[in-house]
């Protein structure tokens, strides 16, 4: 009996010791991981400063924010509404020889390397867990934060981005607004981007008088209806980006260099010729660049006066 009592005491002490040694909630830990800040900017290498040539049939060129491009014939085209839907932004690890077979299979079955699952954090009202709609008719060169995403340590050589047909919700999706019906010039509609990859509302001078003065403008309101889906673009970085635990954040900025969107296109055919529109969509896809990539946070935009 005494033997039993001694063992009982010993066991109780053992339990008390073990319980006392157990970790409690004070030991909770939450350490942030490596973060990739993703941004977007758009710009022209050689900005076209378009002439203001208001004429019947066009949009209110003088009153509307617009960007100007030239087509293959040098015709100035004013863009008033231009939206692109992008998704699957990711840094792609550098491939070693040993990874070539994997790269081959990835070509057959594309893989996303830093998609926004765990660790996708919104920034400035946007995030990477859904497509992002880019409004091209905003200030050139402004770096728009698209969100933060978790990323594995490694050496990265490429930036991946897809033009995507919008099916559902997206960040930056514009609210549809019908065109005005003012006469002789109007404001273009803000398009409904559902089911679209891109949409453009633009015009150009279609007729001039003998003095060269524009007397009629032609609206070009197009989207990607009937066009084949563009491919995912994989754009090489200027130098590989090494991300590790030393500096736990990095950034990558997608650049949309839109100078050449119309370089091989006759704008007069754009509204009616599907081939011309397909060339435009391909040009858009080809205009993606790595604007900048590095360690640390996204560069801060300069404050305009």
């Amino acid at each position, binding site marked *: 009996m005494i033997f039993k009592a001694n*063992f009982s005491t010993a066991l109780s002490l053992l339990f008390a010791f073990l*319980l006392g040694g157990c970790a409690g909630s004070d*030991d*909770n830990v939450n350490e942030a991981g*490596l973060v990739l800040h993703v941004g977007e900017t758009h710009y022209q290498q050689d900005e076209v400063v378009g002439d203001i040539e208001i004429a019947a049939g066009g949009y209110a060129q003088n009153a509307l924010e617009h960007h100007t491009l030239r087509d293959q014939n040098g015709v100035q085209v004013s863009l008033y509404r231009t939206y692109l839907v992008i998704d699957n932004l990711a840094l792609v690890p550098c491939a070693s020889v040993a990874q070539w077979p994997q790269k081959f299979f990835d070509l057959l079955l594309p893989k*996303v390397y830093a998609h926004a699952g765990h660790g996708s954090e919104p920034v400035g009202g946007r995030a990477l867990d859904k497509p992002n709609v880019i409004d091209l008719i905003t200030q050139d060169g402004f770096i728009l934060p698209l969100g933060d995403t978790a990323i594995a340590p490694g050496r990265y050589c490429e930036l991946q981005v897809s033009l995507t047909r919008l099916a559902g919700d997206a960040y930056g999706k514009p609210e549809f607004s019908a065109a005005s019906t003012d006469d002789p010039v109007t404001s273009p509609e803000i398009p409904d981007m559902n089911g679209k990859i891109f949409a453009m509302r633009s015009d150009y001078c279609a007729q001039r008088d003998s003095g060269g003065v524009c007397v009629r403008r032609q609206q070009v309101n197009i989207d990607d209806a009937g066009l084949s889906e563009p491919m995912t673009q994989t754009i090489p970085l200027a130098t590989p980006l090494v991300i590790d635990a030393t500096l736990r954040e990095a950034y990558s900025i997608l650049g949309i260099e839109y100078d050449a969107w119309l370089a091989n296109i006759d704008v007069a055919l754009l509204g009616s010729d599907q081939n011309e529109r397909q060339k435009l969509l391909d040009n858009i896809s080809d205009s993606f660049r790595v604007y900048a990539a590095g360690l640390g946070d996204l560069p801060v935009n300069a404050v305009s006066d």
Partner: protein
Amino acid sequence: MRHLLILCLLLTNSTAVFACATCLCGDPTLTTMGVEKPFAGRTRVSVDYLTRGETVGEARTEEHKIDEERITYSLSYAPNTQWMLSASVPMITKTVDRYDLSHEQSSGVGDVDLTARWFIGRPTSIATSRLWGLHFGARIPTSSEQMLKGEAIDFDAQPGAGALIPSVGIWLGEYHLPWFFYGSAIVQHATSDGYQGYRPGNALLLTAHSQYALPTQAFLKPFIQEWALQFNLDARWKNQDQFNGVLADDSGGTLVMATPGLAWTPSTDWLVNISYQQPIIENAKGRQEEEPTLRAGITYDF
């Protein structure tokens, strides 16, 4: 006399299977209750240490490694010869290390397991006997959701699931000295959601346990009264878990583990056991790589 001692060791066996509350592979009651015929007033306490790990999710995009250590304190009591009741309280530390080098850890009391075992089939002789009966149990959401600076720790690092999980099953023990065999089949079904919208999938747990009592050599007598080798096959079939009604990609499937082990009695009423559980069949949904599990425990019978 020797046979009686061997039988005693067999009947007081408390090791055998993995009783992990998270992966739910194997019969979770063997540790706390043993498999012996109860007598009225029989009381047993035990302390078990367990360490395990698993890697889940696609590499570079979702991969995370979960490591778990737990100490489980158990008490079982037989109010009569037909019923045995037990309660187990786990103290758990879990860590999650993700592909992006983020790290989460939390510690605390896990969910309590309450179990009742009904002995229906009775032994007919001391040398060869068969026991069988039914199992009733429930995992009670006694844990609290672990927080840090007002934010919940990720579910995978939570010490408890926070869900109510009843279970029913059938079990059978067969003694053929110096052999002992035990089998059980237990079904678990969650009746409420746990933390962060978690609802575990229905699970079927199968256990096949064998044990062989070894003769004790004279030179071992100062340290070991009796000892036995053990070998288990534990299987789990589990439906996919859900989070907020959405199926979790990397959950559910089939897992079979082989578990060699050793049990010995250093002195009267004490039992020490150690086992190593190795996954041998993994047919999981998505990517789930279970690591071996090491377990050690000590039991005392009053």
